[in-house]
């Protein structure tokens, strides 16, 4: 073996040295940014193709099985639904159903389907597809998140089709949320019914399905999906919608959604013109506005509203966690003591949160339902002012005394101390907790703050109940009844004390009743007072301490016309187009 390995000095110089030199040459070639990419004319404007970005990959292309927002957004343009939400009026408007009639007793709704709507394969969309879609959703073997929204008192909606273009839905009792929640994607019965009958629905239209097999009826059809890279759409030339001059909609010829996990990267891509629209974070708004001022990029930046969700602190009031072997942890007494909670509410420095965390681009949140929800938001609530002096006085008056500087005790002499947590990966929540912690600690209450991985946090909220105080957010919808699981004392998302067999407090019982009343009133304006009252109760009893809502901004290239983003979605997206020049 040694003989074989003997290498002459010459051969070293002749063979290895040149090899190394070559390697260096090759790698420096790679370093030199001279690699020419021959771009075919790829002009977003000229080709009328809109480039956008999405933060993650889709999980499924089956609209019924979707449980995440990305999959929803990526399949949204493929499937039409009976009704859709008008993001300006926040009322349901016509989709596949041209119009609908509500029976006088409010227990039946008749949907009149639009004629001439076709599936991508040319077959007509008719009432059979609607009935099939409902059957699939109600199939107990198909786990989906739509079923609860259209289940009324544990009963399904009975649907029948008197003819091909009429669907009658009979409800066990009047149920106002239905007009919103019936905005579900309608599925092609002629393709999926055999699959469903064979028991394979749960494995149909996963993300490995070739895009041309996804038969929808929406404005775009998917042409290409490359995992973690992009999703491409072409417009549906047979789409039913026409503009006021009879022109075919949508006007864009296609869309490309690039998948960009990192938000910084997405921002940079927008700045470099690779994507055409962008929803900036609060700290990015001011640099973008500067660019508008200096006419650097040819973009528009606009405030489109404020956040529709709710971001709040809540204290654990769950006796299952605090009462062990007949011994009650004093924390339960504090967290159910209104005086303590009011003091905490007065320690919420919303101004600093807005200034420091959201660069002044946020507003204090008072009611649980966002002001963007024009009908159901309660505008009459008065916020708890940030007032450390008042908070300290309230605690003193309620028997929580300063034992020595920096140490406050409850009436029984226990030191006030609690754990505070939120999920990792959201710097804003982390900063808000840090601000709250400093303020509360200035009262002599010790706060142990530690953010937790999301799944771990959920496990604590949902199963082990091992938490004291948490900062958590919920996204908000138009329909307040969608939050029933959170408001209702028996709900599993009634975070501070979930799954109660019967309401622990009188005000919780009142909320339960209000929810039932609100759902059975059909007229939105007559429904509103019930939900206003719920917000009033939450505000007075403080199971949750509202924080702030950030302002939402949108930015897009000036060459993009008719782009009308609203907090609830795009208004008239079919009219979008690039300026022809």
């Amino acid at each position, binding site marked *: 073996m040694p003989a074989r390995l003997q290498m002459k000095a010459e051969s070293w110089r002749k063979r290895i040295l040149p090899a190394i030199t070559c390697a260096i040459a090759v790698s420096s070639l790679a370093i030199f940014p001279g690699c020419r990419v021959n771009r075919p004319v790829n002009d977003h404007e000229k080709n009328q193709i809109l480039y956008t970005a999405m933060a993650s990959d889709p999980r499924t292309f089956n609209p019924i099985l979707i449980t995440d927002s990305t999959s929803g957004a990526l399949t949204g343009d493929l499937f039409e639904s009976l009704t859709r939400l008008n993001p300006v009026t926040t009322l349901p408007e016509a989709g596949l159903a041209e119009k609908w009639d509500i029976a006088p007793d409010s227990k039946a709704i008749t949907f009149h389907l639009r004629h001439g709507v076709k599936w991508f394969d040319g077959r007509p969309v008719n009432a059979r597809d609607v009935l099939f879609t409902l059957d699939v959703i109600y199939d107990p073997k198909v*786990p989906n998140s739509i079923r609860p929204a259209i289940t009324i008192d544990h009963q399904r909606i009975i649907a029948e089709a008197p003819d091909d273009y009429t669907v009658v839905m009979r409800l066990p009792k009047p149920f106002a949320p239905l007009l919103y929640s019936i905005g579900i994607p309608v599925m092609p019965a002629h393709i999926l019914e055999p699959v469903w009958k064979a028991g394979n629905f749960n494995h149909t239209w996963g993300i490995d399905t070739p895009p041309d097999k996804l038969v929808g009826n929406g404005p775009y059809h998917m042409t290409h999906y490359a995992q973690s890279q992009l999703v491409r759409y072409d417009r549906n030339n047979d789409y039913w919608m026409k503009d006021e001059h009879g022109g075919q909609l949508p006007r864009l010829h296609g869309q490309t959604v690039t998948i960009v996990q990192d938000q910084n990267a997405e921002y940079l891509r927008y700045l470099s013109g690779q994507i055409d629209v962008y929803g900036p974070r609060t700290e990015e708004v001011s640099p973008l506005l500067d660019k508008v001022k200096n006419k650097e990029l040819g973009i528009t930046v606009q405030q489109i509203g404020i956040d529709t969700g709710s971001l709040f602190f809540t204290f654990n009031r769950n006796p299952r966690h605090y009462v062990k072997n007949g011994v009650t942890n004093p924390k339960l007494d504090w967290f159910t003591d209104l005086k303590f909670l009011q003091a905490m509410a007065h320690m919420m420095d919303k101004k600093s949160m807005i200034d420091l965390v959201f660069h002044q681009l946020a507003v204090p949140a008072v009611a649980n339902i966002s002001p963007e929800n024009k009908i159901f938001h309660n505008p009459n609530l008065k916020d708890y002012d940030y007032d450390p002096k008042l908070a300290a006085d309230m605690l003193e008056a309620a028997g929580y005394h300063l034992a020595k500087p920096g140490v406050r005790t409850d009436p029984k002499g226990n030191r006030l101390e609690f754990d505070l947590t939120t999920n990792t990966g959201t710097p804003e929540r982390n900063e808000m907790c840090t601000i709250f912690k400093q303020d509360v600690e200035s009262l002599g209450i010790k706060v142990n703050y530690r953010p937790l991985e999301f799944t771990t946090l959920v496990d604590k909220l949902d199963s082990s109940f091992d938490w004291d105080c948490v900062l958590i957010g919920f996204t908000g919808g138009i329909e307040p009844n969608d939050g029933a699981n959170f408001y209702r004392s028996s709900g599993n998302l009634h975070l501070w004390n979930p799954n109660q067999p019967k309401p622990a407090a009188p005000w919780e019982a009142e909320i339960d009743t209000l929810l039932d009343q609100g759902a059975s009133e059909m007229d939105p304006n007559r429904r509103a007072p019930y939900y206003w009252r719920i917000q009033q109760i939450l505000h007075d009893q403080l199971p949750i301490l509202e924080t702030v809502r950030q302002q939402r901004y949108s930015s897009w290239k000036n060459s993009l016309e008719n782009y009308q983003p609203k907090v609830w979605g795009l208004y008239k997206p079919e009219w979008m187009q690039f300026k022809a020049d």
Partner: protein
Amino acid sequence: MTRFLIRRLLNMIPLILGITFISFLAMSLVPGDFVSNLKLNPTITPEVIHQLEAQFGLDQPLMVRYFKWLWGVLHLNFGFSLQYRVSVTGLIASRAFNTIILSLSSMIFSWAIAIPIGIIVAVNQNSIWDRCLSFLAFFGMSVPSFFLAFLMMYLALKTGWFPIGGTFSPDYATLDPLSQIADRINHLILPVFVLGISGTAGLMRLMRSQILEIKNSEFVRTARAKGLSERVVIYKHVLRNALNPFVTMAGYSLGDLLGGAALVEAVMNLQGLGLLMLEAVRSLDIYLVMGSVLMGTILLLVGNLLADIALVAVDPRVDFSSVAAE
């Protein structure tokens, strides 16, 4: 040789079992499971949650789940990703390509630069070159790679010379094949630089110390005493021996090929395995994690085996019995 191979391969079996079981156990120690990600969605009821748990087999006891998984693996069925609802093998394969390209290029980059520089520096020990380059090497070793990645992203933004992160352009599919390659290379430059720099520094130091060590060893002194010129001594005797550990290192690097660039991948938005694994762990996508662990382990073990075989091949002082004893 054959006996050695069989022994080593047999040794791998308990190793793989041990690693996969410990990983499975650790994963179950984390409170909650994949379905926990859905629990705070008000439209998803506990009933749907339970259904999904049953569908994914997450409601069964630990041992049952482990052995079911193992049984599947024995039949080359690695399970499916809970996040993506597709088979783990397909998912890993689609990402592994990007990662391998990235790791290979940064390896070539750092080797191509480190070895010649290491030689130059060692031959001219304590010269101004040595000092400067050694200092630079320490500099490279001491800069956190993710931090360098941020700086490079910033550079790309400010200068426009490079694409800002990503594996290729959004219009990649519309390019002609040559441009596709060029586009990929364009996107590779910064990540390869970032990943290569720290490797370069370490390798250069290793090369330098290897040469210095051998330069002062007895047989080199003998060679010099024979009156051979310093040039011949260096190239003929020193270099050949100094390169031995690098042959072994190439084998060991096999395990790193698919592994640890997760941070840089995350920062520069490169669609590689590291990022996939990171996400999988965070969202408790257990079968995807197990698939990656298994693949990483096998690569590492095979890499070590190859490294040992290579060591025997290049170093006459080592034979299989001494390697086997390790």
